């Protein structure tokens, strides 16, 4: 079938390099640089595409057209915007802490790129396949909070500080629910390694195999990760144009673009994790028992499956943002601590019971 194992390709490249240059530091460095370049390109192109998608989706919800002048259907719009942002003046704030001010956007980008490295795009197409994959992804994506808090603090602006504090409180609270809902699936799958989790979904996706607890975990995950990424109804910290402009008030030009980009990449990351853990990642839709149906499903390439699922979830998150009003900070924290956290805890217990008694498909 189309389940081409990319590990063959990567081992061929490795063999080729090792053969000509020897199994040493040089080979490793070249391989790492190759992976880095591929990822940076992918990151950039995906960022451009996501910004375009957001603008088009937003426009269609609001009964208007969105960008349609630059390129066919406005596809080159983001490139034009990016060039404009590059040419903008970088305003330096004199009273800001210069080093932290400049480092903050990079921390956010690095955090999301590190986490992206663990995602499986197809069989074998994965930069790092840790046996604690899920834990690694959660740990690295939590580093982003540092960037936000540093940005707010170093701007030397009380409004940025308020925005950053709120954002920090929000992200740290919702990480608990994200973690617990992912743990629910780990309980079902029995492993934290991404490739094993996907292999375990060959018969059917976890959201179907785990029925009720997996479904609840999915709902909790989607709500909590929308809050994690400061999107949708939880964007009090940045769309605080109600009051202040949030933690990125003092940033202009390319540094602002980095914050903006990292928000979209985080959204992609979170939806990719949801797609992998709940919906099977690159595994096609298999229904146990219908061999012919499964055979047909296998003909669609796994990369298409992965991106299809991820983009459907991204569309869902964009739908939230353009429909609902914003939550207030205390309502947001109440939602987490009084509702989502107890639900996730109880849910893990239910899932553990199901697994012990083999009450799953």
């Amino acid at each position, binding site marked *: 079938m189309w389940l081409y194992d990319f590990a063959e390709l990567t081992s061929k490249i490795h063999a080729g390099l090792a053969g000509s240059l020897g199994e040493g530091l040089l080979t490793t460095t070249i391989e790492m640089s190759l992976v880095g370049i591929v990822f940076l390109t992918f990151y950039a192109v995906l960022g451009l595409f996501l910004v375009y998608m957001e603008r088009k989706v*937003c426009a269609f919800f*609001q009964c208007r057209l969105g960008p349609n002048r630059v390129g066919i259907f406005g596809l080159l719009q983001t490139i034009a915007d990016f060039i404009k942002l590059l040419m903008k003046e970088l305003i330096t704030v004199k009273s800001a802490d210069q080093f932290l001010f400049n480092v903050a956007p990079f921390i956010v980008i690095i955090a999301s790129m590190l986490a992206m490295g663990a995602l499986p795009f197809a069989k074998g197409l994965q930069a790092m396949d840790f046996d604690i994959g899920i834990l690694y992804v959660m740990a690295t994506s939590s580093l982003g909070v540092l960037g936000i808090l540093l940005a707010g603090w170093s701007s030397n602006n009380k409004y940025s500080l308020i925005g950053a504090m709120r954002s920090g409180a929000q992200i740290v609270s919702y990480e608990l629910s994200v973690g617990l809902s992912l743990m629910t699936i780990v309980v079902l799958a029995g492993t934290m390694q991404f490739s094993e989790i996907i292999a375990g979904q060959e018969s059917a996706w976890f959201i179907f195999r785990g029925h009720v607890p997996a479904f609840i975990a999915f709902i909790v995950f989607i709500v909590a990760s929308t809050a994690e990424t400061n999107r949708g109804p939880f964007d*009090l910290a940045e769309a605080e144009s109600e009051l202040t402009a949030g933690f990125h008030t003092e940033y202009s030009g390319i540094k602002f673009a980095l914050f903006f980009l990292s928000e979209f990449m985080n959204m992609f990351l979170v939806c990719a994790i949801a797609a992998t853990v709940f919906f099977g990642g690159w595994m096609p839709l298999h229904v146990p028992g219908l061999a012919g149906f499964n055979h047909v499903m296998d003909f669609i390439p796994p990369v298409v499956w992965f991106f299809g699922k991820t983009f459907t979830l991204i569309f869902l998150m964009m739908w939230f943002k353009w*429909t*609902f*009003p*914003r*939550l*207030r900070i205390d*309502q947001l924290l109440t939602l987490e601590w009084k509702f989502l956290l107890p639900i996730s805890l109880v849910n893990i217990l239910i899932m553990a019971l199901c697994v012990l008694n083999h009450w799953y498909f």
Partner: protein
Amino acid sequence: MVDADIKEKLDTVEEYLINMGPQHPSTHGVLRLVVNLRGEIVKDLKPYCGYIHRGIEKMCERNTYPQIIHLTDRLDYLSAHINNEAVCLLVEGALDVEVPERAKYIRTIMAELTRLASHQLWWSVMGMDLGALTTFFYGLRDREHILDIFEENCGTRLLVSYNCPGGVMYDIKPDFQKKVKEFITYFKTKLPEYEKLLSGNVIFQQRTKGTGLLTKEEVIAYGVTGPSGRGSGFACDVRKKNPYSAYDKVQFNEIIRTEGDSLARYKVRMDEMRESMSIIEQLIDNIPEGDFATKMKPIIKLPIGEYYQRVEACRGEFGVYVESRGEKNPYRIKFRSPNFANLSALDYMSRNEKIADLVAIMSSLDLVIPDIDR
């Protein structure tokens, strides 16, 4: 510049000042608020007005009465037609001029269309302030239909100076009735959509319920009228108290709610949109034939004395007080603006509310700043 005495009274360890405006996405105009915050809670609020003060009252002292009508447009520009009507009614009352029935009907229909357009804009902006950015587009898309009707009949979209002492300036166009009826049918299908999108949303209700409370006594003490006053139980609709134009010929309900929070004010306005549509439906087919204006003298001089005329503008009671000394321009003219009274209650309403609620409270009060500053 913030007064030194405000800064002195601060408990500087716990409290701090935040400046909202004058350029601000959610103050609906150029209003500057200096908010004294303790953490997230608003302790005190001071409005600084005057950024769009144009001296309209002084200007009117040397304008003739027909010229004054064009200046009243620029006060609360969203109820321009109703403001014009107030000055015309004052002049007609002072001179005891009988306005033809046709003109009265036309004036009332236009006033209710203005009210609908104003409430549509308010709804769009309220959703947008709270984060539901899509409501802005839906509301304005439907408001365009009303503005097209105005443009065809009166020549302009917003600042229509269609009234003149004695009646209206020119007759309605032949397809006016058809277009208005089409719009009413169209909008009746859209209003349930608005309710589904915003009113029924749990997040929206959580943000507006119980915030910005005003009891009936406070509303009367501050002079808050209009939908904001009716949301707290104050029956202040001038169309019912002192009917003018064709309002005594139609049946409509005065929407009153007693909770007094932002959600009550929101619901009052949504129901008022339905009542406006019902008033238009009752009048649109029965416009009597006849003149559209009575002939007035070219130079209008009011007899010596004081006159006060009140109408129900979209945001409350709009009053015009004129002291005339027999000249063709008033000796003193004063516009009792509804937004000014509503603003004076903002400080009291937002004490001990969170800063994010302040935005919801301001949108539910529906302030239009040029009316405050005149």
